[in-house]
């Protein structure tokens, strides 16, 4: 037990260090401010709706819907950008400024170092998500005067989506020397993760009779089965349409833990790749 505690002590200190450094990053703070601006702006978005439309009640409800949808999208997009930026930069930056030399020359294994870094990234991502969600909660609470607990479920699923992208971006960053490439890579992972579904279309369209065509189809089908599909997390927006007063419906209740396992499995995959790359990396 104490051996395990000892093993994780180093990673923990590195995580805290990463966190303290990360929250001071200018890009991150910039994105955060931008996302807060959008959340704030969504308050006024409804002014595009002319006041004469509909009865007063319907209008305020469209208002509420607008705020809800825009805020969830904002959290997703800016949260994702923050996640990608932070995951892509923590390791390359330390290699660049040589802090990694001082840390790895201490009794810290590379596994522990990566674990600490990854943990630190997750702390930053979670803190961002929590901050944005909190503001969003307040925004809705002010408007609708009811506590939107469904949003918390939505935020939870959003986090696991971030986690998958974060792990794979982190893996790229471990093989890179600067943060630029992994950042672009992270954006690609997000794009590809959202387009995985099209691979199924490719496999469905392939012609069995033609060898090359069938091969492409089979490859697409195999990729579709193995690559993470971020669209699976889209129930995060669906959840908000449920009745906030009622308990979660059985099917959503079953999907949430399964999605979490799904996200964790791919996060572990990403992390293993990261370690694999970093294990014998020449620094």
């Amino acid at each position: 037990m104490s051996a395990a505690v000892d093993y994780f002590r180093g990673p923990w200190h590195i995580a805290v260090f990463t966190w303290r450094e990360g929250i001071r990053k200018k890009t991150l703070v910039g994105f955060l401010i931008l996302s807060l601006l959008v959340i704030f702006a969504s308050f006024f978005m409804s002014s595009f709706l002319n006041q004469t439309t509909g009865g007063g009640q319907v209008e305020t409800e469209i208002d509420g819907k607008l705020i809800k949808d825009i805020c969830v999208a904002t959290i997703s997009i800016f949260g994702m950008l923050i996640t990608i930026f932070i995951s892509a930069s923590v390791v390359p930056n330390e290699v660049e400024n040589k802090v990694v030399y001082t840390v790895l020359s201490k009794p810290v294994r590379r596994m522990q170092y990566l674990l600490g870094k990854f943990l630190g990234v997750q702390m930053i991502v979670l803190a961002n998500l929590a901050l944005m969600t909190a503001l969003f909660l307040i925004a809705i609470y002010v408007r609708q005067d009811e506590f939107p607990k469904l949003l918390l479920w939505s935020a939870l699923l959003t986090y696991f989506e971030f986690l998958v992208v974060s792990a794979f971006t982190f893996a790229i960053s471990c093989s890179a020397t600067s943060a630029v490439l992994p950042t672009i890579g992270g954006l690609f992972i997000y794009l590809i993760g959202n387009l995985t579904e099209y691979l199924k279309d490719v496999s469905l369209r392939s012609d069995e009779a033609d060898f090359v065509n069938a091969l492409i189809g089979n490859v697409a089908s195999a990729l579709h089965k193995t690559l993470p599909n971020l669209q699976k997390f889209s129930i995060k927006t669906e959840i908000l349409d449920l009745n906030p007063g009622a308990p979660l419906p059985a099917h959503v209740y079953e999907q949430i833990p399964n999605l979490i396992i799904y996200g964790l499995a791919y996060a572990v995959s990403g992390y293993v790749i990261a370690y694999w790359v970093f294990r014998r990396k020449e620094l």
Partner: protein
Amino acid sequence: MKKHPNLTLAAILFVAVAIGSIQGQRLDRLFEAEAFLQWIAAAGANERLDMDETEATVDLELYGQVAGATETLFAAKLPEGSIEEGHSALSAALETGEYDDEIYRMVKSDELAPMREDFLSKLREGELRYTQNLSYAAVMSGLEGKGSVSIFNLFFGFRKVAANFVWLQVDRYWHAGLLHRMIPLMKTCVLLDPNFVDAYLLGAWHLGYNVTANLDYTPYPLRQWSEKHQACLGDQETYYYIAVDFLKDGIRNNPRNYKIYFDLGYSMYREKLKDPENAVKYLTYAVRLPHERWVPRMLYISLEENGQYEKALEGWQENLKRFENHEVSLRFVQRLNGLIAERKSEEAKQAARAASDPSEKEAHMADYRKYTAEAMEIWNGMSEPYSEARKLRLEAIDRADQGYYLEAVSLLDKARFDAGSLFEEFSDLIIEFKLVGDLPLSVSERKQMIREEESVMCQGMPESVRDERLAALEAERAVRH
């Protein structure tokens, strides 16, 4: 790990990806089950409300199978009397959230596996219609149809945001007066977000109230028969029914939201289509769902208009129990009591006329006098334009019975202007008295007669329907004579 680090890492990676992949497939199965569930919810709402019996034949057939397979299960569970005549137990069980867990269990069960497979293959072939409300999750598990580009994917899961912006454009078109451009965009909007309830409500309101505001009345011979709606559609009606279909889509996609039922029942059927029967139907369902407190009152009013006085009375009394000394409820309770008495007196009079035996006739006449007095007493107990007008009506009937038709007509004429809500009812009665008393009809009354006669035929109306309507009209006229 120490000896073969690469091998160990490869093994861990393989296991992790395998878990992810298996979990992905598992989620796909869950999403498929959810899609099936959502489709059942839509088809169930459709069956419960008898909304669409002609167009979605594939859906109806498949739903019939599912409902058949689960009939005994839910029939045993549901309280007695909750299943309506000719409807399945499944659609009754779907109405409120009470049996949701059970329905979901059933949807995933092996028992329904063949139907689920059938559903999925039909969905992929694009044969089903009630699939608009399937979640992205369901849609992305390859259910969108073979090889079609999924609009859901296009928006990266943010189609709801897209729906909002489409709605902003609808709103802009409305203010620019480009009404015809609104309709396709409204449909796009709810396609993007089938749970955008306010889009259904506002869209239908635009169609039913704003788009049609400047359209002229269409004479029946110029109207077109609609098989789907069993009605003759003129310019205005065409839009009313677009709105009705739009709201019905909304109900199928959001069967638990009372607002759409309410708007369909009250704003469309009651206000625009003058169809109290359907108004009562949809408002009844609205009231069964969680609703605002004013919703039942609209149901009671529609019940009264549909002639279901007793049910309306029950409702108002219920309302009175909940909100003590609620003035409106009190007035309606009195009013309905008066109406029930009036109807009883009317029935007694008809019975007396039909009776051949003098003693029996006399008994009916006694009833008639008793109920008339009762009604009179109730109207005397109230003092408002409505009750005054009802009193004048009773008086007028009394005059007419004695042969003083002109006097009766003049009393009714005064009454219909005193209480505006009774204008149509009393105008009809005036025509009836004039016809019976052989008094000359005014121009507008003549016009109304012509319209009534016209209404039995429009372009494309099938013979059987025309005959039916003609017979109904003649029967009504016969009563007047």
